[in-house]
Every structure is written in structure tokens, then in C-alpha cells.
């Protein structure tokens, strides 16, 4: 979950400096814009109402798809753990989702549906198998001795889930969420770039490409990275708090 813990500010600064010097030496804004120009552009964008609308539009859909995928993936994993038949039935479907390139899904759903809510579907499809296999692995790895204990003392199902299952599966769920969160943003934005739903971040990226507007491209990229990072942090903290609260009596 933690990024390899050796991200030092000085090293980041060195690379930013290299970038800045490189951009200044090249002196071609279309090819390489400097970090300062990117920040300046970002500042301009942040003053526009349409900027925040686009961020909201994409964020709502991508995180919506993520939440949907997380819920459905978890529920399916619970059924699979319970019934071998369900697991066998789902296996080909999930394998297909995992192996089919995102681009194919994007094109296919553009043919079938409108582009407006495309990123919900794509984000959902990317998240689903990750959460499914993560949670299923967690359920499988549950301590048999604890399950026997719950059986012997006849702990009622809801209490059992909350106090015996949840604490054991939660670490797996969190790890799956952490990796799925990165995935859903990348694929969600890719979907928007191809489908260009009006008022999305992806549309703005596409426009930046059309007009060779490199500062815009970099600024929007920075926005995507920041928003996804912030959401990831926020979501994982909320999740940890919720779990902490639930696991306590």
C-alpha cells in the first residue's frame, strides 16, 4: 500500500531541476514545457469554472465506477467462497475481463452505449477483478481455527461477519482497493480521451492534443495525478476508520 518508502524531497527537487533546465535548454514549448509553465497554466485553469466542472464530472464517474466495482467484486467473492459452482461459473468471465485490453472495452462500449457515462463502466470493469480476487484470497486465507471457534460458540452470522471475518479479510480488501484505485483512474481517463464525453477531463486532454497545447496536457495530467492521489488517500483513511470502528465492540 505504501509507496516504496524512499521518496526524498531532495531527489524530487533534483529531477524537477533537470526538467526545468532541459526545457529551458530546448526552448520549445510544444516539445517540452517547463515545470514552472505547467504550474502557471494550472493556476490559470483553476480560476475557470469549467475546470472544476470537468474535474467533478470525471471524478464522480470514475470513483462511482470504482465503488460499484468494489461492492460487486466483494459480493461476488463472498458467493464464490461459499459456493464452488459460483466460482467456476464466474472464472471465465473474470478471466475475459482481465485479459481483454481496455481499449477494446472502450471501443465496444462506445458502439453499444453513449460516451457520457463510459468512464463509469470502464472503471468498474478494471476494479471488479482486482477486488474479486483480492477479497476471495482474503476469505480463503481466513484462520480455520477462528472459524471453528465461531462455529462452536454458535456466534450469530452478523456478529460473526463483523468480529471474526471482517478483521481477517479487511487487510486484503484494503490492499485490493489501493491497487484498484490507481488502475481505475488511468483507465477511466483513457476511456474519456477516446470517447470524449462533453465536459470531462479526457475531452480536455484530447483538445490539448488537437491544438498541440503541451502546457495544457501537462497541467491536466498533473491534475489527474493529484486528484487520484488525494482520493486514494482519502478513501483509504475513511476505510481504515470505518473498519476500526466496526471491529470494535
Amino acid at each position, binding site marked *: 500500500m505504501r509507496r516504496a518508502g524512499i521518496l526524498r524531497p531532495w531527489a524530487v527537487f533534483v529531477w524537477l531541476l533537470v526538467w526545468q533546465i532541459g526545457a529551458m535548454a530546448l526552448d520549445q514549448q510544444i516539445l517540452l514545457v517547463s515545470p514552472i509553465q505547467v504550474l502557471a497554466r494550472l493556476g490559470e485553469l483553476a480560476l475557470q469554472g469549467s475546470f472544476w466542472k470537468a474535474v467533478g464530472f470525471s471524478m464522480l464517474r470514475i470513483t462511482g465506477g470504482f465503488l460499484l466495482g468494489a461492492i460487486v467484486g466483494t459480493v461476488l467473492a463472498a458467493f464464490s467462497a461459499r459456493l464452488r459452482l459460483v466460482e467456476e461459473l464466474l472464472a471465465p468471465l473474470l478471466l475475459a475481463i482481465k485479459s481483454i485490453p481496455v481499449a477494446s472495452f472502450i471501443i465496444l462500449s462506445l458502439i453499444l452505449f453513449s460516451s457520457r457515462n463510459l468512464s463509469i463502466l470502464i472503471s468498474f470493469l478494471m476494479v471488479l477483478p482486482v477486488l474479486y480476487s483480492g477479497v476471495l484470497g482474503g476469505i480463503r486465507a481466513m484462520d480455520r*481455527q*477462528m472459524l*471453528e*471457534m465461531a*462455529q*462452536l*460458540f*454458535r*456466534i450469530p452470522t452478523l*456478529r460473526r461477519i463483523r*468480529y*471474526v471475518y471482517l*478483521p481477517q479479510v479487511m487487510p486484503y480488501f484494503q490492499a485490493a482497493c489501493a491497487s484498484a484505485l490507481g488502475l481505475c483512474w488511468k483507465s477511466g481517463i483513457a476511456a474519456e480521451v477516446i470517447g470524449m464525453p462533453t465536459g470531462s477531463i479526457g475531452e480536455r486532454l484530447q483538445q490539448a492534443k488537437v491544438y498541440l497545447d503541451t502546457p495544457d496536457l501537462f497541467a491536466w495530467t498533473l491534475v489527474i495525478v493529484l486528484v487520484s492521489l488525494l482520493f486514494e488517500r482519502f478513501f483509504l483513511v475513511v476505510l481504515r476508520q470505518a473498519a476500526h470502528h466496526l*471491529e*470494535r*465492540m
Partner: protein
Amino acid sequence: MHRLCKSFGEKSVLRDVSGTLAANRITGLMAPSGAGKTTLLRILMGLEQADSGWIDGLDGLRLSAVFQEDRLCDQLDGVSNLRLVTPSLSRAEARKALETVGLADCIGQPTRELSGGQRRRVAILRGLLADYDLLILDEPFKGLDRETKQLVMEDTRRRCTGKTVLLVTHDPTELDALGVTELLTGLELNSPRLSGQYRKEP
């Protein structure tokens, strides 16, 4: 009341084991390691199926147990661990029970932060305090230091009086300390080393 009879056949671990548990008494079971005690207990607990043979009088009984392992919910404190299996137990009652076995200092701590001996005591109390018709104690006092063991055994004896309990142990002094008079005799576990007899210390 409920007299249990059981016999198995053809299983390598337990071969034609029969025995009776006396109701409302503590029954001791002593046998060397590897004699199949744990398997026997698991069948009693309903966690394992016997290949053949049957148990009478076990249907509908509420079971409780102290496993060889602690099997605690590590994120919960002692009070919550007790109340998880016995919701009718009030917080105050649970706290008092923990204090009796010397756990007053660490009542609010999650059990993962407790020492082995402290966890053991929580696990023992969980088994003792549950509402049960039959309590199974599988080497419950293992890993406790002498003083604590004495304290816990007294507490166990007090709480188990008049109840149907099966105590498995290696240590004859534990049987004495709990005032065990019944022994699971006629229990011919797989091993010829098993005497099935219990003699008072000379």
C-alpha cells in the same frame, strides 16, 4: 442427565473408543500425546465426523470449549472477547471475571497486545463464562506460570462446580486441583501406553 456414549471403528487415530461422561461433574481424560485426544475432542465438538460409531445425548447441547490455542479475536479487548460469545454477559460482569484472574491491568487492551499468559486467561474465561451444557477443556492451563495457574485453577473449579465438564490434561495435579473424581475410563485410545487409570499422588 446426559450420558455420552461413543464408539468409533476403523479409524487409525481412534479405534473403538467408548466412554461415558458423567453429568454435572468434571471428568478427567489423561492420555499421552498422539493418542488421539484432540481428534476425540474435535468429534465431540462437532468439528470432525466420526467414520463410524455415534454419540448419544449430544444433540441440542450448547457447547463451550477452551481450545489448546487461544483463538481470540485479537482486535478486541478481553471484555469484548468474552461478550462476543456470551452477549448476555454485562460489561461489569466480564470485567469482574477478568479481575479475578489477575487481568485488572489490561482490561481495555486489545488481546493482541497481551502476553501469552494473559491471552490464555482470557481464552479460559471465555470458555468458562459461556452458556453451556458441556464444556471441553483441552489442556487449558498450558503455558501459565505456577502462581497464575493456581489462581486460574481455583477460579475454574469454582465456576465448573455442578457442571458437565471434560478436562484433558497431562498433569495429574491439575485433576487434583479441580477436584476431579470421574475419569474417562474404558477409553482405549489407539495407544497401548494409555492406562486410562488415574492414581492419586502417593
